[in-house]
């Protein structure tokens, strides 16, 4: 509260003290661990992940690979698949490509191109970014991330990859964007009625980008209808991700999603004074044009929206980002090698099941290894059952959390465990790789509640 004097106090000699105290308070707050996962999402815990350096170069390179389907081509979940091209009445399939600048802009709007939580430093390892509505990671995927989809009520391996590994998260985000495109014409309007709805035209992604955030209509809190009265300021300046002094709009509360993304492509964000990508002009539909307005009228916003088709906003643009060097894929994904600190472990027995044994996962290769653990019996619980083990080639900034190992606690559920001697196995998988470790598990003699068998430091 600055009541009682004008803000000229900020020019007073006390300013440095105010700033220093505030800075320390904020930094102290940031030093707290990330909050718990949003309830009801894919996992009952927040899996760990690797966070890029501040320049985001690794993630931006990954986005370009994903845009050209060069990360996991052919994978039914993480590959781009095919995209529908052509006028509403005559669509055909072509290998999918996404304008890279759109994926970069989406990633910036969604997460500022970060995979880890907002409290996690750049160039470090920590809990993943999970939003209140179960958006995960760089592309804030909610599709397929709101409930556990694996066996026995667990998050699935695919969900684990989305949550823990930036490359899979980005690849899946690109695929979801293509899926949104492919909802036209059956379930979405077509943008580009005069350009055969070709996906090479950036402007033709208008409805797909809108759909990425939800093809919601007028009045909804998440409405992306550009004429919606929920946007209190009309008309509005173009949105910009650029410097605050560029004379454009920066308050995201005032814009539908597709205007944020298109504006960010045109006016890219800067990090340490350098734009994250080359500005790519993208034209929005002219809401001053009576034909466009007529197409977006309220009574046209009715499934399947066929009366909302619009011509390509002019001037049209093509993203001329060159196709990346295929060798970049190997550099980004590395060659992870799964290892565990032991192949046999004993869980102390305790009447209340609180005693735990800890299993540690290593990546003796390179890149990020997403691991996923499964017990052979239902009476062993594993927490967390997924996370990352990070190779030494992935840089961490000095003095930030950078625990490259994965850790899990193994416990016995005394209510479900059989009487007598107990033995089982825990399988640790390297997701996306043909690697697995098998850990033999035994249960020890009973100890007092709360006792744990610790692994090596």
């Amino acid at each position: 509260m600055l009541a009682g004097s004008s803000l000229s106090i900020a020019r007073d000699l006390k300013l440095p003290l105010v700033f220093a105290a505030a800075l320390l308070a904020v930094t102290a707050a940031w030093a707290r661990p990330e909050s718990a996962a949003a309830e009801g999402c894919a996992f009952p815990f927040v899996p760990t992940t690797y966070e890029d350096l501040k320049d985001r170069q690794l993630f931006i390179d990954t986005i370009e690979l994903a845009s050209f389907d060069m990360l996991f081509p052919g994978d039914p979940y993480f590959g781009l698949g095919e995209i529908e091209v052509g006028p509403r009445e005559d669509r055909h399939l072509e290998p999918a490509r996404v304008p890279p600048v759109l994926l970069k802009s989406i990633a910036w709007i969604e997460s500022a191109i970060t995979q880890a939580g907002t409290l996690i430093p750049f160039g470090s390892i920590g809990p993943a970014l999970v939003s209140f509505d179960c958006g995960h990671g760089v592309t804030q995927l909610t599709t397929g991330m709101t409930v556990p989809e694996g066996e026995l009520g667990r998050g699935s391996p695919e969900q684990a990859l989305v949550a823990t590994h930036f490359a899979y998260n980005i690849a899946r985000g690109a695929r979801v964007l293509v899926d949104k495109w492919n909802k036209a014409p059956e379930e979405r309007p077509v943008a580009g009625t005069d350009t055969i709805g070709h996906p090479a035209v950036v402007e033709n992604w208008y409805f797909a980008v809108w759909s990425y955030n939800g093809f919601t209509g007028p009045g909804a809190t998440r409405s992306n209808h550009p004429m919606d009265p929920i946007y209190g300021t009309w008309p509005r300046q173009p949105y910009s991700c650029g410097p605050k002094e560029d004379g454009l709009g920066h308050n995201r509360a005032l814009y539908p999603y597709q205007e944020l993304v298109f504006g960010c492509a045109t006016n890219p964000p800067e990090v340490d004074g350098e734009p994250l990508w080359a500005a790519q002009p993208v034209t929005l539909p002219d809401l001053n044009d009576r034909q466009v307005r007529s197409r977006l009228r309220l009574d046209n916003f009715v499934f399947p929206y066929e009366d909302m088709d619009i011509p390509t906003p002019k001037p049209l643009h093509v993203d001329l980002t060159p196709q990346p060097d295929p060798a970049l894929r190997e550099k980004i994904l590395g060659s992870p090698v799964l290892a565990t600190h032991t192949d046999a472990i004993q869980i102390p027995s305790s009447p209340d099941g609180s005693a735990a044994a800890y299993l540690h996962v290593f990546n003796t290769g390179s890149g990020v290894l997403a691991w996923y653990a499964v017990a052979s019996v239902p009476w062993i619980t594993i927490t967390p059952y997924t996370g990352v083990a990070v190779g030494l080639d992935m840089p961490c900034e000095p003095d930030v959390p950078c625990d490259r190992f994965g850790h899990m606690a193994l416990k016995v559920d005394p209510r479900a465990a059989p009487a007598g001697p107990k033995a089982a196995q825990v399988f640790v998988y390297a997701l996306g790789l043909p690697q697995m470790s098998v850990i033999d598990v035994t249960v020890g003699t009973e100890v007092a509640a709360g006792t744990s068998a610790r692994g090596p430091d």
Partner: protein
Amino acid sequence: MQAGSAVRRSGGVAPWLLTVLGLGLLALLFLSFALDEPPAPSVPGPRPSEARVAYFEFVTTSDTLWLAEVAEPSRREGLLSVRHAPEYGVLASLSPAGDRVAYTALPPDTAAPGRDSPADLWVVDLREGAEPRRLAGGVDLLVRPVWSPDGELIAVRRSGGAGGYRLAAVSLTDGRERAVLDSPEAAFPVAFTKDGRTLAYVALNAAGSYLRSVEVDGGGQSDLARLSDGLTRDWALSPDGRSLAYVALSYRGGEASSRAFVLDFATLAVRPVGDPSADAFGPVWSPQGRLVIGSLGSGGVALLTADGRALPGPARGFEVPLAAGAGDSGYVVRSFTGSSVSAPGAASLTYIAPDGARKTIASGEVTFVGWIEP
């Protein structure tokens, strides 16, 4: 899938050490305030004897509430800095008495914030030294709080419940909240009746915009009028409560236009106001019931009053009215330097004096809160 923070920390220092250092600095700061006289502001603050305007200035992680003299905007005072989720500014409204501001804001620590992230409702007294008070959580950020005439209730909207949308009234006296309406249709609170017992709201569905009312204490609902077969916005109740002005995106004979209308509650007649060939913006009422709208068309730009009087437009660009002063004391508008809705150019908050002279109140990204009469 929603937006995130552009602000990150660089980490690595022990929290206890930071806390100790922070406390030490705060103690030093306290001492420095205790020992010194308060600094004289370099610019005089606004005089309560003059008309003032309240507005929030948007910055990435916080908005500042300013109070400035309408006619002499350099006389301004920063009242409050509101921290919010990065990139998402506050939405605010002024109480009928002009003494308090209600606003919605996303908590600063919202992970991956978006427009649909749960927002908090706050109220702050504009009197010197008052602290903002959090009244409710989980409200819709983008739906402007609506005050009851006596300033005792604030209507907000919640989304995502079983009914789809809930309009609720929050008491400033005890902070209690009562559900007023659960609706599957998108509903926007517009205004309370003078006795505060009924809330008028606009419901949107595929057939158009409808003005309805609902008893605040859980009574019946009434259909009042169909405002348009399309989208409407910028609903403004006249000071006497007898008319509602609004902008509708109309479609007649295949032509689309943005026009201003006035609904007469006595007759339920809807009449257009302004130039039918021009786009209309932001209808506002003066305290005496004078209606003014912005107009942008082939015939040029102007502020139009409902009686057909045109105030000359700016040298360039166009203007959207935000408030009209009592008597003939002028207007506050949002000025755009561009020539069309699709290319509006730079924006600023501007005062238009009765003689047509224009004075910039604030440039950049500003959320208008209200005009405060002396």
